[in-house]
């Protein structure tokens, strides 16, 4: 007799478990997929969601670079090459080369720490794929530029002031790690000013 009841029990179990399983998969069919369709089908770019001090690819704001060579000296793998000479005629420091080899860079962040103005800093950009090693060397100097000279008071030049503010905010956040929200607000403000430099702050 137990054979027959086992037989019926097996059929009952099969039907009820398939019923339950199909209900689960049907409920999953009606849920939103978890997939993040990086990179092109996202509501917000990943770069915009990263923190201000995220160590992405290095960037240099030449407008506020003092040409002190601190970053080049501190770089543990020599991926930064700077050529800064004094102009014999005008006696000004002239930057004629500022190259960063992104292929060598290990994103340690040592270069951005001693920078007096926050000129060299990490961005939130991390997509560095390229077709050749040569094109990974970022050359920031197109034509030789005069190095920035820090002033005693606040910066008066409307063009340079927002960039300097941003750089200082970058340094401050490293120095005072707790002030995350303040620094972010300052950075946002600075970014907004960079976007519209004509307006007085």
């Amino acid at each position, binding site marked *: 007799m137990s054979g027959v009841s086992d037989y019926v029990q097996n059929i009952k179990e099969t039907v009820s478990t398939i019923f*339950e399983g199909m*209900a689960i*998969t049907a409920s*999953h*069919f009606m849920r939103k997929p978890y*997939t993040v369709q990086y990179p092109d089908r996202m509501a917000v770019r990943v770069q915009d969601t990263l923190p201000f001090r995220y160590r992405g690819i290095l960037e240099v704001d030449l407008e506020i670079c003092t040409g002190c060579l601190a970053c080049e000296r501190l770089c543990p793998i020599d991926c930064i090459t700077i050529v800064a000479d004094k102009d014999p005629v005008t006696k000004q420091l002239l930057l004629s080369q500022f190259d960063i080899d992104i292929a060598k860079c290990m994103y340690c962040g040592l270069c951005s720490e001693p920078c007096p103005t926050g000129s060299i800093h990490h961005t939130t950009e991390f997509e560095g794929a390229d077709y050749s090693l040569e094109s990974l060397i970022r050359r920031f100097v197109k034509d030789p530029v005069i190095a920035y000279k820090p002033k005693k008071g606040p910066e008066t030049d409307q063009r340079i002031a927002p960039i300097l503010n941003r750089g200082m905010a970058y340094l401050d956040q490293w120095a005072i790690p707790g002030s995350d929200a303040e620094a972010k607000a300052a950075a946002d403000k600075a970014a907004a000013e960079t976007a519209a430099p004509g307006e007085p702050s």
Partner: protein
Amino acid sequence: MQTLIENLVNAGTFGKNASVVAAIVIFVLSAVVFLGVAFPFAGIVSWVERRVWARIQSRVGPNRVGPNGFLQWLADGVKHVCKEDIIPDDSDPTLFKTAPYLVVLAFVLPWAVMPFSSSLILADLNVGILYMTSVTALTVVGVLMAGWASNDKWSLIGGIRSAAQIVSYEIPAGLSIFPVVLMTGTLSMQGIIRAQGWAPQHWFLFANPFTFIAANILYISALAEGNRTPFDLPEAESELVAGFATEYSGMRYLFFFMAEWGNLFIIGAIITTLFLGGWQCPHITKNVVLMNVLQLIVFNVKVLALVFLSMWIRATLPRVRIDQLMLLCWKYFVPISFVDMIGTAVWVAIWPDGNAFMGYIMLAGAIVVAVLFIQRVIFYLRRSRMEMYFNPTI
């Protein structure tokens, strides 16, 4: 279709050798039209299936080629055509080359008796359903041939498993057709559909408890014959690489899978014809052409619902072991389908014209089960604390 040919011949459309020319013209035309539907269908199903699985697994699926990835199947086809067609040195070249065509032939032949509407059928054979089951069983020849000719352990085991599986499941499938044949007294596809009504309570699915069980057994057996996932042992990746298709590449490989996806339509069409009332729809218009279009739509909706069900099952159930497969067939399906057959015979002896009351009871039962099922689905959706979300275009 035959009446159309006769009318054209009598009208003198084709001149002297009327019957021969007419036959050739009509059959070439209909072959082009029907196969022009069959092969793209197999391709599109491959895309739909991948999208459906993906959504069930909380993924997105192919959505890059064309609008929502719709052209993915064309891209896959082009890719396979461009691939090298490798024929292994130690294989039997003739058998190796023939096998995929036999499998495709088993997929193409059933379209001859596919009852799309009351007049849209290539040949309404008086042994229609018998023809259908016998030509689909031709797959086993192609698969076994592929497994043997590849001269490879995995291929051979895959081919033999497939042969064992298809031959075994032919028995419950054949026995599950009997209840319907007993009730209608005909094997013709159109005859079986005409014996049913458009309303669900007049379908053979709800005619009596035995036909309901027979329909389920036939569907599961058809899935097993079509090598679909709970029963896809012949191509079990984890143990047999790709089974009988291991040594195949390029277009020949694609042929096996085109036949597999296309067979979904044939499985759906068999169940629809036998148990779901085929193309039957209410007579709402006297226009013959319009009526046929309506019937075509009704038939295809039913078939596509069954195709979707098979994708859903494939995404739900894990693959069975070979002993479980055989156990299910010989210990459960075969005895139950015999009981079904005898039960239906007794039923027909008691109520020769069918029991109309039973149809309503069965339909009510089915609706209760469906409501319970929807309740479970909503329960799982709520438990996940997620809004119900249905957007296929993501």
